[in-house]
């Protein structure tokens, strides 16, 4: 048995508030225990995806990104905040096709394939071969992103051949797109 001094009218409201909060907390903690119950993607997992610790593509994370504008914006900030080669929007207007992008220590340019008319080379030249990125992420409209795994650099050069109608190229053709090489 426990006997308390009955709370005053003034303190009753505070006790009520605290009782309510603790009750809701107990529900929340108990609710979350055990079993096959749904979970929402935690930001630490998105962060791991942004910095490559979780491989691209992850279907669950991509689905979450596709469905949540706020999460896409957060993902963009996570990626663009990382120490990486960051390319802001292209400066010059283009008559067609993606523009060469430059940033400190790196350049991305494009060259139409002579052998395959439907493909284009993405050529990344790095000033410092020690900082070799493994992925390219392109953010375009509405914080949507396309990511591409990069092959191993040779003497500071990364080259890959992509389709002209590929998602990555469409994103790169948007002069307002931001690019992160990580």
């Amino acid at each position: 048995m426990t006997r308390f001094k009955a709370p005053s009218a003034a303190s009753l409201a505070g006790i009520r508030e605290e009782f309510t909060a603790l009750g809701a907390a107990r529900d929340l903690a108990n609710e979350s225990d055990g079993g096959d119950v749904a979970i929402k993607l935690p930001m630490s997992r998105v962060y791991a995806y942004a910095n490559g610790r979780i491989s691209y593509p992850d279907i669950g994370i991509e689905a979450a990104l596709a469905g949540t504008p706020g999460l896409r914006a957060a993902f963009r900030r996570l990626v663009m905040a990382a120490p990486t080669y960051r390319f802001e929007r292209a400066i010059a207007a283009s008559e067609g096709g993606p523009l060469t992008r430059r940033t400190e220590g790196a350049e991305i340019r494009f060259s139409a394939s002579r052998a395959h008319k439907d493909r284009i080379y993405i050529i990344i030249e790095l000033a410092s071969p020690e900082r070799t990125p493994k992925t390219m992420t392109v953010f375009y409209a509405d914080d949507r992103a396309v990511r591409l795994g990069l092959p191993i650099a040779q003497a500071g050069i990364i080259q890959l051949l992509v389709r002209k109608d590929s998602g990555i190229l469409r994103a790169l053709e948007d002069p307002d797109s931001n690019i992160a090489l990580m």
Partner: protein
Amino acid sequence: MTKTAVYIATTNGPVRVELISQEDIARSIVVKSADFVPLADIAEEYQHFVSGNGPVARAFGPFDPPMFSMELSAEIESGRSWHLAAFIAHGLAAENRLAGPKDEPEAVVWATGVMGNNFSVAAEHIGLKIEHSRALFKETTSAGIALHVVVPDGSLDEADHVPLATHHHVSDARAALQSLNVTSDGALSAMEITASTDRANQAPTSKKWRRAWIIGGISALILAIVTENTTGWIMTEMLNLSPEKPTMSVALAETTEKQGIQPTPLEQNVVVQLDEIRASSDTSCAGVHFRGGLGNLVPVRMNGDGVGADSAGGGLCGIQISLSSVELLSVERVSIETVAGNFVGHSGNSFNLAPVSKGSWRLFVPRTFKIPIVYKIRLVTRAGSDVSISHKVMP
């Protein structure tokens, strides 16, 4: 045009070279044709293989654009035994004769060999590679397609030969190209290396003269021979100097007289001539470069100051420089001084042509080049005459 499929022999089975294209990219690459995934393991080696002092560059280059993409049907492990097959594939690709995946080849080349800087070849595990290629061999021969097995000399016993295949045992990668001759009417057929070698070693008929042109004020005696360069690539051509038509040359005697020097009796008989070597209907520049083809000789018109008319690079295989005198002891030294551009196999600004006793020499121009090749042929006689002829080859 006949197409030839080229396969790299590997211990995991044959891998086809499906495409070689020149691309405007930063470095040459090797990719798997199905998904264009770069094959990093051999990319570095391939870059060296096709550029700089690599064999393809030295054999066919320089190139514009200078980089290549080589597409393979499958991944191959790191190592270098793909060299020989790739070298052959480059040669065929240069003539638009490399069969792509959609082409129906009329011949199949299966090759293995690591190439040295001097184009020597060596290979290992040939037996295992043959074993893992049995299906390809059977499919090829069953379809009636000519099958050529190209291996380093001494690496495959006759007892292990592939049935129904023509075997090419080579010690030099260039000989492989020579022996894999593509003719206009059909499939690849083999030529004996000795035959091509013999042809290449033929002594010049030095008594055949060409009409001489007098260079006012300058006497020049030109003698050209492609020599072994500092990295050991030997390309020696001794050619029949029987021109089919008159050409232009410089008579040393008249030149020295204009200098006020009395030519010696020997010098009186020395005449220099310059000819463009062009592809003919039955000999391409590759045939000229590798198979001893004569090509079509077109005289270079000289003016009175010892300057040759510019030669257009399109369709030009090289320049032939001939010395028309049996008494070559009067010549001390002949050299080429390059002001701009480079001949194949020569990257320095100046090189000697030796030995002077050769009758005629050939300087080959790259298949594609961007800047003009501007050079002088400089001749120094024992009597002290020092003359030069200038010429330019335009891109």
